[in-house]
């Protein structure tokens, strides 16, 4: 039972088939994966490998054609829409490549949204949002609109929004994809800090080699299958240097 409790995400035989006209496209061909609580897991693979599809299944954003995904012991496919919404709201935090902030809402209002969906009053939700925005270093940008801050700051707002409900898992889809190298590094460092501080599990889909050095486990997806799984120390990546500082 104790080992069972350490596993927060359990994917078994996850398959996804898209039907495009008469043709059937197998995006995923049966993936098994366990993610331990508190782990930093990166999913790697070229575009078209099924990486994003698998990532979406784990995040409860899409349904597998066959197989199932368990989060904290609950099978996602057994949940109804309202329970799924509850899981997305309380258990998961999402970070996207293009930030996906609501452009008509200030940083504070964006971060307060998940709290409001959780049933909190707007005033209390904003209090909690201000607190977490301070943690990500944006305490001075509370009333700014996303269009008024830089890309890196937008991603920080998105990270604050992902964390505001104290989720167990944070899913980050190419979180550094739209950022320059330096800003990307800062965001990776921030994610690493927050992982330790809040004890969250982080799952990322990426092809940014910088992210691998922060990972505990890396899964390579190829042709819709888990090609290789490596733990820290088992993979060795050299990505060169920036300003004389070695990455990886």
């Amino acid at each position, binding site marked *: 039972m104790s080992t069972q409790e350490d596993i927060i995400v359990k994917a078994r035989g996850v398959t996804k088939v898209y039907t495009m006209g008469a043709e059937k496209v197998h995006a995923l061909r049966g993936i098994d994966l366990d993610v331990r609580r508190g782990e930093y897991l990166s999913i790697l693979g070229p575009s078209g490998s099924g990486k994003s599809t698998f990532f*979406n299944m784990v995040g409860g*954003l*899409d*349904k597998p054609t066959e197989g199932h995904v368990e989060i904290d*012991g*609950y099978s996602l496919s057994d*949940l*109804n*829409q*309202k*329970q799924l*919404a*509850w*899981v*997305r*709201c*309380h258990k*998961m935090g*999402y970070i*996207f490549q293009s930030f*996906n902030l*609501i452009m*008509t*809402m200030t940083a504070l*209002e964006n971060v307060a*949204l*998940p709290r*409001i*969906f*959780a*049933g909190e*009053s*707007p005033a209390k939700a904003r209090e909690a949002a201000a607190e977490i925005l301070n943690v990500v270093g944006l305490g001075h940008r509370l009333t700014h*609109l996303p269009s008024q801050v830089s890309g890196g700051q937008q991603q920080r707002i998105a990270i604050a*929004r992902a964390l505001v*409900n104290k989720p167990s898992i944070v899913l980050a889809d190419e979180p550094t994809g739209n950022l320059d190298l330096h800003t990307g590094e800062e965001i990776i460092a921030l994610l690493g800090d927050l992982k330790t501080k809040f004890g969250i599990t982080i799952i990322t889909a990426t092809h940014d080699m910088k992210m691998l050095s922060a990972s505990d486990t890396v899964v390579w997806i190829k042709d819709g299958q888990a090609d290789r799984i490596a733990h820290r120390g088992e993979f060795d990546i050299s990505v060169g240097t920036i300003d004389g500082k070695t990455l990886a």
Partner: protein
Amino acid sequence: MEKIPEQKHVSWGVTFNVSWAGIRRRFFRSLVTMSGVVLAIAFLTYMQIMNKIVNALIDAHDPVLDAILQAAGVEIHESGSNDSILLLIILSLLACFVGIVNSMLMSVTERIKEIGTLKCLGALDGFIVRSYFIESSVQGVAGTCLGCLLGMIVSIVVAFMSYKMHVATHFPWLGLFEALGISLLTGTLLSISAAILPAYMAAKKQPVDAMRVEE
């Protein structure tokens, strides 16, 4: 094992609170959407009121008036109804329908990705439908009222210019309110349903499918 609870609905008050911020900050975009409604409803109102006024003048059976009407190109039938104007009203209703549905549809479809994001954050389908209901109601009612006002003023001014003071003596008060009522109902119902249907369909999608929609 304990059961996963169901996500609770966000109250109307809080939903309004959240939507209002959006309406306020998207003010100019809202104006564009609203102007579509205003023009469509103004046209419909104008056509209706003009029809009522002309019919009222025909019903007066005043030989002097009949001469003015005929000079203006109005066909006077014994029944008092005017087929060509009726056709124009149906046409204006059609234009109104297309105009409103188009502007409301645009304002929702350009934000389907946002709907996907909201679902990721834990929004229920109901919250999304409610917030679009609030937004389209505000835009629809405001746009319809302005459109009614615009259509009414223009039609009355044009009627006075064409038929002078005869309009005042035979003014169709009942017809005026009837026309305004039809316009109000058409504008509000069309605006709300044209926004809610696509919002409902987007809310029903899996979040990834909604977010995959091209902007």
